[in-house]
């Protein structure tokens, strides 16, 4: 079983700062991490490999330093890594990103068939949840998003059964390989690689592909050029004109009473609604 896992290196958004005057992102010193959602997919892929044999290839598109995240994935247990990097990719939106990644996966398939592709549910910087479906659609694979459990895989029949979260419940789906899966967060716990994994990761040759090496011929489908969306404006959320009005009172009881008065004064209908409800209507 050969599984490709798409991971993205993202800035740790907990540490992002915004320039107070120009409203631009200040990246200085902001550490990067593997998109946390991708780790659930990586772990699931590793489990399948452990169960059925084969290999896991991690793939990322990003600047040269994104190699760090690939090496980290190798240290967790992935077998092989491909970095897609080219200045032509700069400014890619989700359409251009999924085009580049899908083309690279096709390139990988030329030498080794791919049975499954895993992507993260979404990224914490782009947050779109579009790239996975985008890749899947281009590769003509079956799409399984928000998977919370891989119930069974039958490599001989090339069948897979998964539990997929939907709004009102869980769908149990059966489909054929090849398929693309995005895992729901919290569904498994990323493993701690062995010392041998760490040595292998530190010494591994990460394959670095330019757009051309990945088999991309039409550069106009990459980067800003290949992106239909245009970011016109970036700005800070506007502050509300008024700050919260503190209620007056000495002690908890008085404060609570004052707060309730203020609540019902500004929301008169709320009181009758609550009354109806507490009377059991």
């Amino acid at each position, binding site marked *: 079983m050969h599984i490709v896992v798409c991971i993205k290196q993202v800035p740790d958004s907990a540490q992002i700062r915004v320039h107070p005057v120009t409203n631009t992102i200040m990246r200085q010193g902001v550490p990067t991490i593997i998109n946390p959602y991708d780790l659930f997919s990586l772990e699931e892929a590793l489990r399948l490999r452990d169960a059925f044999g084969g290999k896991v290839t991690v793939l990322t598109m990003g600047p040269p330093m994104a190699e760090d995240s690939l090496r980290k994935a190798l240290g967790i247990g992935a077998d092989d890594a491909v970095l897609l990097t080219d200045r032509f990719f700069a400014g890619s939106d989700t359409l251009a990103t999924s085009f580049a990644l899908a083309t690279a996966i096709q390139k990988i398939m030329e030498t080794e068939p791919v049975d499954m592709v895993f992507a993260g549910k979404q990224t914490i910087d782009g947050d779109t949840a*579009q790239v*996975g479906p985008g890749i899947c659609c281009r590769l003509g694979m079956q799409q399984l998003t928000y998977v919370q459990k891989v119930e069974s895989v039958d490599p001989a029949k090339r069948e897979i059964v998964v539990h997929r979260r939907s709004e009102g419940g869980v769908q149990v789906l059966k489909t054929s390989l090849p398929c693309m899966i995005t895992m729901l967060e919290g569904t498994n716990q990323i493993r701690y690689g062995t010392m041998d994994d760490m040595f292998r990761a530190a010494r591994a040759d990460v394959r670095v592909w330019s757009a051309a090496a990945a088999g991309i011929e039409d550069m106009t489908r990459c980067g800003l050029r290949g992106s239909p969306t*245009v970011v*016109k404006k970036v700005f800070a959320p506007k502050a509300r004109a008024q700050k919260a009005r503190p209620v007056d009172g000495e002690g908890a009881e008085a404060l609570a009473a004052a707060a309730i008065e203020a609540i019902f004064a500004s929301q008169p209908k709320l009181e009758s609604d609550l009354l109806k*409800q507490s009377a059991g209507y």
Partner: protein
Amino acid sequence: MSADNKPASSRAGMKKQLPEKFINYKHVWVFVELERGEVHPVSWELLGEGRKLADKLGVQLAGVVMGPPAATTRAAVEGSYRYGADTVYLMEDPLLTDYRNEPFTKAMTDLVNTYQPEILLLGATTLGRDLAGSVATTLATGLTADCTELAIDDEGSLAATRPTFGGSLLCTIHTLNFRPQMATIRPRVMAMPEAKDGEVSGGLIEVPLNMKEDDVITKILDFIADNTTNKAQLAYADVVVAGGMGLGKPENFKLVKDLAEVLGAEYGGSRPLVQKGWIDSDRQIGQTGKTIRPKLYIAAGISGAIQHRVGVEGADLILAINTDPNAPIMDFAHLAIIGDAMTILPALTEAFRKRLSVNRMAG
């Protein structure tokens, strides 16, 4: 290398130059999300928002309904009119009973290619996101996810605003030269529009799917419905009480639950509480949790970080309970009790209990 084959730099100043093939794309469409006989309320919210966009553009608003031949599907059509659609595009086929990516993607792609809308809105639900991601790819157009605000700019393009970089900034994204312009919007971000009373009607365009079950590779083996009694219904609750790290220890979260119970409210919390396992993840409120839009939101011991803020800003009234008068939450709450949540919460619970029971007896 031709000039065309050079990497481009920024395009913020780019102008709209719609290619010939898109000139006839017109009207605003909302995908009406029908799953297991029920329409997700986000679809009505989007029809409300779509109405405004259509009016601004002077075009029609259409609902797109896909489902099995059944009364519930027809009810979704009627609901679409009720919430403002002028027209409904309807695909009825047994294949569309349960959501599966393949038939729905084909259905939507065909509809768009045939009837050519300029704007297509979907709810940012598990279904909407799954479908939007593939349809944007088959149509090779732009898709802006998780929008918080939609507008029409001077050139008549959709200006879709969404949080970026963990909510610390907002950005406005346009799909200038491709059609349709697609966006997903999370439940409860847009207000629920008033439903029209009485008889409603509108245009109906029925389109066949042209697909056989044998063509669909993915099969539904089972559907395990959520046990709704225990599931949080935060997004649609009228009153929500939430706690944050200011509660100090997990035992104190009971004070939040007590108040919620007296108010018949849903309870929730900030992200660290979920990470620490004090509450379930479906009770997290904020950017990576639920967006809520209650009439009353009570936040105890929550600092009001931007990621929390974006999930609660739609509340009609926000009461903050915090020891720190300068906590960021004071910038967007309406009322504040400056004090220790551990004493304020029980006092509020008691006071509400009295008020509601006294008045009930009086009433």
